């Protein structure tokens, strides 16, 4: 694109720069707005942003090229991204996408000739309990079927702005099926804060310690320890960040917490801010959840009006704290806390070298706490009701309850809260799992559990989970499940370190080869070796876990792949028939004569 195609670009963008104070830290937020204005990021915009923010052009291009929801090429006025989670696949999304493309004469990944629309797939959008799902210009579409796609095609042909589409297309339900103490009991805004101020910060920290609360985002680190380390770190400013990136496929519990329990989450952040001495907090909201932005802003405004945010909170002089929402733009890696901080600083989401850790050198190199949405909700409850009450629930190493997002082959997908220690079998019974055969616990980065293990319990001592639980019934193609995971990791690797950048691609290619009936026994050995290199040599948790689904499959589910293997010990990866695919596409043929025997 030539600059002269956008003669007004400077006038159009200057108000955006002004709104963000021309701060380089706001680069990602600015690029999001540019994407909304032009439906892509023109080269002229990159040059213009670089000049106005006074950063090298390479920095702007680097950020614009990193996030999936920013595109450097025109993506059309309407960009439809079909969610590609395994649950969406099982609900028929690939067929729906083909149907839609066929109907509108489109090719996935390519913009229509009139520059009107483009269709592609995207990583899990967090609507697994009401899929098949997609995003249109960033807004979630749920419960897709042919009729809805026909309607959408009509709306696009009529060039109706997305904000005028029928609301039923965008309906998102909470689907809370089982509420425990966190979801079931009502919360009075301000109660936890009042208790914190009465008790004092040190005593509230002691309650956190007594509660045994561990992080809900996956790693299970002690909240009291994290908060006290940050509190003890010297810095000009302290920050608290709510990690609402929720990118692990199959996880959607933070979506529900932010939709219906936002006050509790903000309250937890404010309690944390009081304890660590932060006056500024960020809520890092994944781009897929931007539909929640307006509502969350309203909650913040109400809290400010009620004296629960802002200056002198609850009349306590010097207790100043406010929360700013930062939108992501499609990058699973930005859930990793140090990548998240980079992204908050308007950079590529690249995990930092550690040490130093965020508790001493986080946002802008200042002491920073990053906690999961659910962790903060728990912290608010503990501040209000005390640590002993919380510690009485759950198991020795895993106190309290856990919110699970359950989807896949079950009659009642949705949100379930259980005390830690619950057996998998009981959960499967509750959600109406039909003849369950395998369960992916905690998404692709977690564990693929076989039926022999259904007596295992959800807790840090046994089966830890960040919240996802995807059920597969007997007869499901588990190789397809693992193939989906392998594609996910290859797509989401940040590309920084060699083992993950290249390893996830090699893994994807080999799994594809096996799925396409070209695999041999030597490919299995190759997958194990690759898994070892990624697990032991990678830079961050993404690379460390990227081989989990493959390795679990190899170890626990030989029936899922053995019949696919060729008898030969080796088969070249080059597939002669596959090479003819382009020719078949061009000629529109797929008959027997268009294939090699």
């Amino acid at each position, binding site marked *: 694109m030539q*600059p002269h195609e956008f003669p007004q670009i400077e006038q159009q963008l200057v108000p955006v720069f002004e709104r963000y104070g021309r701060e380089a830290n706001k680069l990602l937020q600015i690029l999001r707005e540019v994407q909304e204005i032009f439906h892509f990021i023109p*080269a*002229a915009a*990159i*040059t213009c942003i670089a000049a106005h923010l006074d950063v*090298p*052009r*390479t*920095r702007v*291009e*680097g950020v*614009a*090229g*990193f*996030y*999936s929801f920013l595109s450097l090429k025109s993506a059309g006025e309407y960009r439809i991204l079909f969610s590609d989670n395994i649950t969406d696949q099982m609900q028929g999304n690939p067929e729906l996408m083909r149907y839609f493309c066929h109907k509108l004469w489109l090719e996935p990944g390519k913009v229509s000739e009139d520059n009107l629309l483009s269709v592609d797939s995207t990583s899990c959008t967090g609507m697994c309990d009401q899929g098949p799902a997609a995003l249109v210009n960033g807004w979630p579409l749920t419960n897709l079927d042919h009729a809805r796609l026909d309607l959408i095609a009509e709306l696009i042909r009529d060039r109706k702005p997305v904000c005028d589409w029928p609301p039923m297309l965008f309906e998102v339900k909470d689907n809370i099926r089982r509420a425990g103490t966190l979801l079931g009991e009502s919360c009075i805004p301000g109660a936890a804060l009042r208790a914190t101020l009465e008790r004092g910060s040190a005593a509230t920290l002691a309650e956190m310690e007594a509660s045994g609360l561990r992080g809900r985002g996956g790693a299970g680190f002690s909240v009291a320890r994290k908060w006290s380390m940050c509190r003890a770190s010297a810095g000009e400013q302290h920050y608290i960040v709510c990690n609402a990136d929720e990118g692990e496929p199959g996880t959607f519990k933070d979506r529900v917490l932010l939709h219906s329990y936002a006050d509790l989450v903000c309250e937890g952040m404010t309690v944390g801010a009081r304890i660590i001495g932060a006056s500024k907090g960020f809520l890092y909201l994944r781009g897929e959840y931007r539909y929640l932005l307006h509502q969350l802003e309203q909650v913040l405004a109400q809290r400010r009006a009620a004296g629960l945010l802002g200056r002198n909170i609850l009349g306590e002089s010097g207790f100043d704290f406010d929360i700013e929402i930062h939108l992501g733009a499609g*990058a699973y890696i930005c859930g990793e806390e140090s990548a998240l901080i980079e992204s908050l600083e308007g950079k*590529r989401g690249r995990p930092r*070298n550690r*040490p130093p850790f965020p508790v001493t050198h986080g946002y802008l190199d200042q002491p920073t706490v990053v906690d999961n949405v659910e962790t903060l909700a728990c912290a608010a409850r503990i501040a209000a009701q005390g640590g002993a009450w919380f510690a009485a629930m759950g198991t020795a190493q895993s106190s309290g309850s856990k919110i699970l997002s359950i989807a896949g082959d079950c009659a009642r997908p949705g949100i379930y809260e259980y005390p830690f220690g619950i057996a998998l079998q009981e959960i499967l019974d509750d959600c109406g799992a039909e003849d369950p055969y395998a369960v992916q616990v905690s998404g692709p980065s977690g564990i693929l559990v076989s039926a022999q293990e259904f007596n295992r319990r959800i807790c840090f001592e046994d089966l830890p989970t960040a919240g996802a639980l995807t059920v597969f019934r007997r007869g499901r193609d588990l190789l397809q499940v693992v193939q989906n995971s392998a594609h996910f990791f*290859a*797509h*989401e*690797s*940040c*590309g*920084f*370190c*060699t*083992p993950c*950048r*290249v*390893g*996830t*691609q*090699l893994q994807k*290619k080999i799994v594809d080869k096996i799925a396409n009936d070209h695999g041999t026994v030597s490919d299995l050995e190759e997958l194990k*070796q*690759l898994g*070892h*290199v990624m697990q*032991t*040599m*990678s*830079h961050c948790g993404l690379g460390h876990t990227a081989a989990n689904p493959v390795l679990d499959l190899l170890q626990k589910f030989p029936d899922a792949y053995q019949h696919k293997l060729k008898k030969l010990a080796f088969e070249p*990866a080059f597939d002669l028939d596959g090479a003819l695919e382009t020719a078949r596409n061009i000629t529109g043929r797929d008959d027997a004569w268009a294939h090699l025997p």
Partner: protein
Amino acid sequence: MGAPAMSNSMTIDGKHVPFSDGQTIMDAALAAGVYIPRLCHNPQFEPHGSCKLCVVSVNGRNMTACTMPAAADMVVTSNTPELNRDRKALVQMLFVEGNHICPACEASGNCQLQAAAYYLEMQSPHYTHFYQPRAVDASHPDIFLDLNRCILCELCVRASREVDGKDVFGISGRGIGTHLVVNAASGRLGDTNFAATDQAAQVCPTGAILIKRQGYKIPIGQRTFDHHNISEVQMKPLEPEHE
């Protein structure tokens, strides 16, 4: 260098290695004459930690030597068959990711990727080649940029930023699409203020950045790694291999 108190020490492959506060495992190893393989690290620049060749085992846990601060009581192993096998796999990954036709490459014999492959006894690239189409940029009057040979070590990025103060290079894309970009709307090196005398023009460990009209000045067979093992060359205080 002043004389910082060497009060601390650790062991690497059984050898006693002293270190001072602020040094990484790599710094301490270099000072003590212990070789740890590396590609993205050059002691002249801020550590980066991306190639992962320098991963060592510290008290049983793998850590990146070029970024991990040294600490007392660390028991480090580096030159083990297991680690060298995994390092070889990383070098093989870099070979198949890019398009490295060594016999046709002007850097052959001076290339650290090639030298690392020799050092780790790599016989073949092992993995299936990606054959990704990548650009060659000859727009600059004095310098070639051949992205087929770029291993994303970001040494040129760091040198241009830290030493030349120019920010000629940057990184864009994600995952396997990660690629080097230059500071020009046209995307052409010729439209940047890059100069052959820049530090960034001297640091590329492979043949991705080549100064024009120097080709084959030093004949094949007489180049750095034709006579020296990478483990000797990289242990010299400053690296003269591109001279």
